[in-house]
């Protein structure tokens, strides 16, 4: 079956350093209501629901089952969850729609990083035998990659500062962003990365509605058609990889059809300035491509939602008529270990 699937709605929270006054479901629910309101759909109209989150962030078990309270799961719904960024939940929903089992899907994801020490929490996703016992935090691992890029002549500290400045300046147009405008490049966190090279730590949620074929045209004036999605992973041992490149991103992009025609927009999930350098190189993006007009993950990086937000932002740009063909990228794991690429297009104008 060859079905056309589109992103027809997208909503996100205002991303903030802490949302301790809300439980996860209290934080998530307004976003679910907003994304459904954009389409006029009710929970009962949705064919498939898929979510992404990680219990490690808030330090509480099975939190995703409680988040379902915000969806309205009675009478019983068709539902699934990935312990990953919501971009991977979107991938699952997309394949579900491709099979013809459903015509619409609700995809949501959320992360509350404020309750715990995020840099340490993320060490728990590392190889438990050789790496995790050393507790190398997320900034340290990104810094190793940044130094490798500097040594290779791919970037330098002023160039990284320029990536940070461009992202936060673009974020001034994004009311949801956590960090925007003029942000000092700051002191080293783990050298060569400074505070300005690192994403803000914060809480947030996002949701997307997918629809197939004519249903998408009914629900949205200019659907963002998903032309392809693919995701790939690198060897888990950092010492095996060339940290200055991202062959998994390039392969995912190739399989998603990204290289068949140029894109005009790229929403890259690059939490660290240095990772944008890697991704631009891996994807062959030239200066003609508008990269992260939303400000990207350097402006707001709600862990587990930031990748889905890249797809949502790219789709919203198509829906607003600001883009005709966009690439959206999501990552997970240390030093861009896992990468997902989606290619989105609007109808010809």
């Amino acid at each position: 079956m060859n079905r056309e699937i589109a992103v027809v709605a997208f909503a996100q929270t205002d991303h903030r350093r802490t949302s301790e006054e809300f439980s996860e479901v209290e934080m998530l629910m307004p976003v679910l209501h907003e994304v459904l309101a954009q389409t006029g759909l009710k929970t009962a109209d949705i064919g498939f629901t898929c979510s992404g989150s990680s219990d490690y962030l808030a330090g509480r078990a099975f939190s995703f089952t409680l988040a379902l309270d915000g969806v309205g799961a009675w009478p019983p719904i068709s539902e699934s969850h990935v312990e990953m960024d919501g971009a991977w939940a979107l991938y699952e929903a997309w394949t579900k729609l491709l099979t013809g089992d459903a015509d619409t899907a609700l995809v949501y994801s959320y992360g509350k990083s404020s309750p715990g020490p995020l840099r340490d929490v993320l060490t728990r996703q590392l190889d438990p035998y050789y790496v995790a016992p050393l507790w190398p935090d997320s900034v340290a691992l990104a810094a190793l990659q940044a130094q490798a890029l500097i040594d290779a002549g791919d970037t330098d500290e002023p160039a990284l500062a320029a990536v940070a400045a461009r992202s936060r300046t673009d974020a001034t147009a994004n009311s949801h962003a956590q960090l925007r405008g003029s942000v000092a490049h700051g002191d080293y966190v783990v050298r060569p990365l400074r505070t300005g090279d690192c994403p803000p730590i914060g809480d947030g949620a996002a949701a997307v509605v997918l629809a197939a074929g004519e249903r998408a045209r009914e629900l949205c004036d200019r659907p963002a058609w998903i032309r392809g999605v693919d995701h790939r992973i690198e060897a888990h041992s950092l010492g095996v990889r060339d940290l200055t490149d991202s062959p998994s991103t390039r392969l995912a992009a190739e399989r998603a059809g990204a290289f068949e025609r140029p894109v005009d927009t790229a929403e890259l999930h690059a939490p660290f300035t240095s990772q944008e350098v890697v991704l631009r190189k891996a994807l062959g993006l030239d200066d003609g491509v508008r990269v992260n007009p939303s400000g990207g993950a350097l402006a707001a990086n709600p862990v587990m939602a930031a990748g889905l937000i890249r797809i949502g932002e790219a789709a919203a740009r198509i829906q607003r008529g600001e883009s005709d063909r966009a690439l959206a990228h999501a990552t997970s794991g240390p030093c861009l270990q896992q990468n997902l690429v989606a290619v989105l297009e609007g109808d010809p104008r």
Partner: protein
Amino acid sequence: MPEVLKAPLAVEFPFTRSLGPVQSAFLTGLRERVVLGVRTGDGRTLVPPVEYDPVTAEEIRDLVEVAPTGTVTTWAWNHAPRRDQPLDTPFAWALVRLDGADTALLHALDAPGPHAVHTGMRVRVRWAEERTGAITDIACFEPYDGDPAQPTGADREFEDPITGIVAPARLDYTYSPGRAQSAYINALAEHRNVGERCPSCHKVYVPPRGACPTCGVATSEQVEVGPHGTVTTFCIVNIKAKNLDIEVPYVYAHIALDGAGLALHGRIGGIPYDQVRMGLRVEPVWTEGARYPDHYRPTGEPDADYDTYRELL
């Protein structure tokens, strides 16, 4: 709005993991101050070693010794070490390609400052004084300006090999239950049970979570329920839980507090266990200083009619 509650929450677990043949040899080797790699089908030597070739997925078991000296392939200066990291003084994280290896190992590098570290610098292993068969048997790397050290030529079959590791992990959180549950817990401190009514289906949820799971909408109208309630169903617990000073058998029950749209659960006391029944009317018993009822006891009212609680089972 009253302040939301907050409390420290430590999540701690001693992860106990078994090792495969390659990991076992590598970690046992570290205990004996020997660094082992594994050879791939195309002749590369991977350190740290893995059991499957990351390129071909071919099973690999050919262990080879490499030197405890090597070269930094990339590094990052960590001026503020975090808890549980290898050194508590400023150090460099480094990927080190040991002499004889084709891949790099991540560890800490002890150096006086970032000026003393560069990609390409020569380093050697500093062994931990006490070694147990873990990656931390390498205390760290240290600068070294000599020639590659020679492998020890040690036998790769060690006496008393390590077959597993215990990797303790602790993360310290500050837990907040959010608005609805904070309000519920605060009311409990005043010995009141407060639920929230769904604006759509009008059901009263207790404890409230801020959302109606049926309608998927926010709940906010607070409704006091109880204190009396009805046992809707129950079970008899015959096995004593560790550190629990309640005599078995005892009864654990679903209790529909008056005015609540669903039952919560609690222990039934003040009545022989074999006399507890569906429809029994109960009330909470609070103990001094407790933030929730210790148990529920019979009120002495006539039993509730089945039809009054059949929807709440």
